[in-house]
């Protein structure tokens, strides 16, 4: 049951009262700071450190009432380290991914919280390069973070303040301390310019503190539950200030359950407690990911389904039975593969030891297939020949895309470095890489690509129902003069998520994509990973894509991620789940879930949570790799477009994250509305 203080904190947060503490820098302050941190006589690393020092100095510690875990951002914005045009200059000779920052990583929470920042400093000073610029900079960020933490400690009551001063330096003794220090470090990471900062395997790294507290009699389960709720709320205080491509896409993913590095099962008492806390709070952060496998008890799926019922757009499920072997296949050590977490959306990343960039590019599968059909269809007698051309084009495109990423520019990040494993010991900034330095390519428009191939196969090669000429002419004119063709392509052609032939083609296409990437290496010695996600590319890649052989009109959106066609008919959740469980998915585990919507009326039935749980489990048993189900109500969303004031709390899943519907750009709102919805 929610305690009064959590209730009050929740009200405070929902009424956005915490935002009253925010302030803008004055223009004089802005100019003065900008001048200092864009000083061209300083290296980028030193500028980065100076920026963080000044950011933290200008922050005002705030202790909110009814709150146990403190840390509230008060500065709305802060200058960057690049002078005007400087980043554009770098871009002329380098590839810059997104903002050029270190991002989308999972840090070594367990170790850092246990040994404190002085423990980290000790590793640094005992490391290989104790006199390097990195060492100087890492020392400075440790000092700055401790000083900032001390300013919070000064505002707390004496006991809590003393505890925080000790914990940030030499390590946490209790669950409260661990959560508070995490909050300070998470806050600092955002302040340092890193973004899509994830939470990692929370039920694992916090467990030793919880267990010790219980043993020492300083905490009860009720107390732990309240602390978790307090901690979860803290992720929602500043999230609108974080850098993201769309509001809500802030990457605060939290992972529960799953196999441990030693091969044992990691589900513990906190796994369930976290699910219950998230259900009770109904906030969009942290975003819950549940790792499951063939042996996961149905009760855990039921708890997950309670969250789905609440309309939060999560949990997102990932299947250890597929993901772990897939990651091992890509070259990750078994103990690292077993420790995987989710990046901002759904990319599988390894905490502590990986500096992977899993979202560095997107293979436009729908476009590649469309180009291939237009160019080569008449040369082909069967689907195998056509797939041969597709393979050639994917290989060419992959090599081309990989080439364009060289040389990569990533800004240094001494602060992120002190949180990872190995940087301090080696005396090297994380931007130079870690144990794993792999890149990932999403595969966008997957079902559109498969459905184009399946349409050609079923209607031209197999049945001769339409001719190549008719198809090509129809595509050329955007079906203007052949509406019947468009109807046939949409309704009579094989489609993935319904027809076995399309599933076979889908499996083949995934295989081609994965193999094409196996042939290339990146300049950091890493590999390329094939994935099934789309991120925002499902909107970007669709705008210039002409009419396609699945009956899609020019410019019409593509399905997000690994989802069925927007005009799939005659198939429900069972067909879609069976249709999207591919043997070759094990080769394409960059991440990207099967996503579909259930009408929220499904949940009117008392057994519905149990049934949704069985449904989710059936996808895991079928060998699906990642799944995300939303409870949506189309009518409610349409009303929310007209009357946003009435639907401020309506939460929807967008691509790999949940956001408040009324705060999304209209193109995303429209897409969520138009997605396939299985109503009952």
């Amino acid at each position, binding site marked *: 049951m929610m305690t009064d203080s959590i209730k009050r904190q929740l009200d405070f947060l929902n009424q956005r009262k915490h935002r009253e503490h925010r302030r803008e820098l004055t223009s004089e302050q802005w100019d003065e700071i900008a001048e200092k941190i864009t000083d061209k006589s300083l290296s980028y690393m030193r500028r980065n450190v100076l920026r963080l020092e000044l950011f933290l100095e200008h922050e005002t510690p705030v202790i909110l009432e009814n709150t146990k875990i403190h840390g509230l951002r008060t500065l709305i914005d802060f200058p960057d380290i690049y002078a005007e045009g400087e980043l554009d200059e770098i871009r002329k000779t380098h590839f810059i991914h997104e903002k050029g920052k270190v991002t989308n990583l999972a840090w070594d929470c367990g170790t850092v919280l246990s040994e404190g920042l002085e423990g980290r400093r000790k590793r640094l000073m005992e490391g290989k390069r104790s006199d390097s610029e990195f060492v100087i900079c890492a020392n400075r960020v440790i000092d700055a973070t401790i000083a900032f933490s001390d300013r919070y400690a000064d505002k707390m009551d004496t006991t809590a303040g003393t505890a925080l001063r000790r914990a940030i330096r030499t390590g946490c003794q209790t669950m409260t301390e661990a959560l508070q220090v995490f909050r300070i470090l998470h806050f600092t990471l955002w302040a340092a310019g890193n973004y899509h900062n994830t939470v990692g395997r929370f039920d694992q790294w916090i467990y030793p503190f919880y267990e010790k507290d219980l043993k020492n009699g300083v905490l009860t389960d009720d107390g732990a539950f309240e602390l978790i709720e307090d901690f979860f709320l803290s992720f929602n205080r500043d999230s609108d200030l974080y850098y993201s491509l769309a509001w809500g896409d802030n990457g605060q993913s939290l992972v529960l359950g799953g196999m441990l590095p030693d091969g044992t099962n990691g589900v513990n008492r906190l796994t369930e407690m976290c699910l219950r806390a998230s259900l009770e709070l109904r906030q969009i952060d942290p975003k819950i990911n549940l790792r499951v496998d063939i042996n996961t008890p149905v009760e855990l799926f039921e708890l997950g389904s309670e969250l789905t019922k609440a309309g939060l757009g999560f949990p997102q499920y990932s299947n250890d039975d597929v993901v772990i072997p897939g990651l091992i296949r890509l070259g990750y050590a078994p103990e690292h593969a077993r420790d995987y977490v989710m990046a901002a959306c759904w990319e599988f990343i390894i905490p502590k030891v990986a500096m992977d960039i899993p979202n560095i590019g997107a293979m436009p599968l729908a476009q590649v297939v469309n180009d291939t059909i237009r160019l080569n269809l008449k040369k082909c007698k069967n689907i195998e020949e056509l797939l041969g051309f597709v393979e050639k084009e994917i290989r060419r495109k992959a090599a081309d895309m990989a080439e364009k990423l060289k040389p990569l520019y990533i800004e240094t990040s001494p602060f992120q470095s002190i949180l990872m494993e190995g940087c301090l010991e080696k005396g090297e900034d994380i931007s130079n890489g870690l144990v794993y330095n792999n890149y990932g390519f999403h595969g966008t428009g997957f079902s559109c690509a498969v459905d184009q191939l399946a349409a050609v196969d079923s209607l031209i090669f197999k049945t001769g129902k339409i001719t190549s000429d008719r198809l090509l002419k129809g595509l050329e004119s955007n079906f203007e003069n052949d509406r019947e063709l468009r109807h046939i392509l949409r309704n009579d052609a094989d489609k993935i998520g319904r027809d076995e032939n399309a599933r076979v083609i889908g499996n083949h296409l995934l295989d081609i994509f994965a193999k094409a990437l196996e042939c290339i290496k990146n300049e950091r010695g890493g590999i390329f990973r094939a994935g099934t996600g789309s991120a925002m590319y499902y909107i970007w890649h669709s705008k210039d894509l002409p009419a396609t052989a699945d009956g899609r009109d020019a410019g019409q959106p593509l399905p997000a991620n690994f989802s069925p066609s927007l005009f799939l008919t005659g198939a*429900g*959740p*069972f067909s879609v789940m*069976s249709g999207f469980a591919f043997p070759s998915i094990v080769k394409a585990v960059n991440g990207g879930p099967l996503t579909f919507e259930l009408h929220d009326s499904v949940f009117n*039935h008392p057994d519905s949570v149990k049934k949704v749980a*069985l*449904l989710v489990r059936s996808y895991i048993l079928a060998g699906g790799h990642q799944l995300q189900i939303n409870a949506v109500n189309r009518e409610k969303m349409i009303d929310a477009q007209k009357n946003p004031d009435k639907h401020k709390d309506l939460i929807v899943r967008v691509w790999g994250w949940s956001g408040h519907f009324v705060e999304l750009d209209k193109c995303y709102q429209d897409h969520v509305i138009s997605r396939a919805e299985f109503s*009952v």
Partner: protein
Amino acid sequence: MKGVIFSIEEFAVHDGPGLRVNVFMKGCPLRCKWCHNPEGWNPNPQIVKNPNGCLDCGKCSNLCPSPAHCILCKTCVFNCPRDLIRISGEEWEAKDLARRILKQEHIMEKSGGGVTVSGGEPLCQADFVIELLSLMPSLHKIIETCGFGDTSKFNELLRCVDSVYYDIKVVSRDKHIRYTGQPNDIILKNLEILKKSGVEFTIRIPFIRGVNDDAENLLATARLLIGAQGLKRVELLPYNELAGAKYALVGLQYGEIFAKPDGEVVRRAKNIFSSYGIDIDIR
């Protein structure tokens, strides 16, 4: 043999245990005034037009080659710029439909689920349904019926199923004619057959204020069920206020507006059935 269905719904959570597929047969002999699914009335495939979003561009009628009598040529379907027109009802061979459903056998079987045949009215295409169900021996099978159909076919059907959802709209013959367009003699006769068959069954009652929520009707219904060994429970389905939503799709206008019985009446209904030792559930 062939049958006409208007929908195959996977993950039908309201119509039986476990994960189920619900097949909706097209065609129904009753015209219940509260029916929310008029798409199920006509036994043949038909054009349905969604009026929401219609631009009134006239393409559907201007291009129609046979305005006086629809020949299902789909010209209007192809040419609607908003994709608002479709054909409801599709002919399936029983063996093809069984194959289609059994593709997901692994999902249904593992969850204790199966297939439910509903409608429309399954009894209207009894031979097809019998063949269909006989082709799926591994699945748990339910039919959902109003009971208005040939008694010998009903008997035959009962031998193919594990459970039955059986509707009793109202016991009074006159009221039955008034609200459904047909008398209920056959329905009550088939109920007796069902009771004697030993097959598990659930009674479903669309629960509507002023139609069947009076004590007299509820008592009469409960008495009909005395001694029925296969009876699992009675489910009261309070009137769906969105019942009229789909009439425009099939070019019809929804007639009478009804209401749900109020809380006190629901409680009384519960007590009546409970006093006869009948398990009662309000949906």
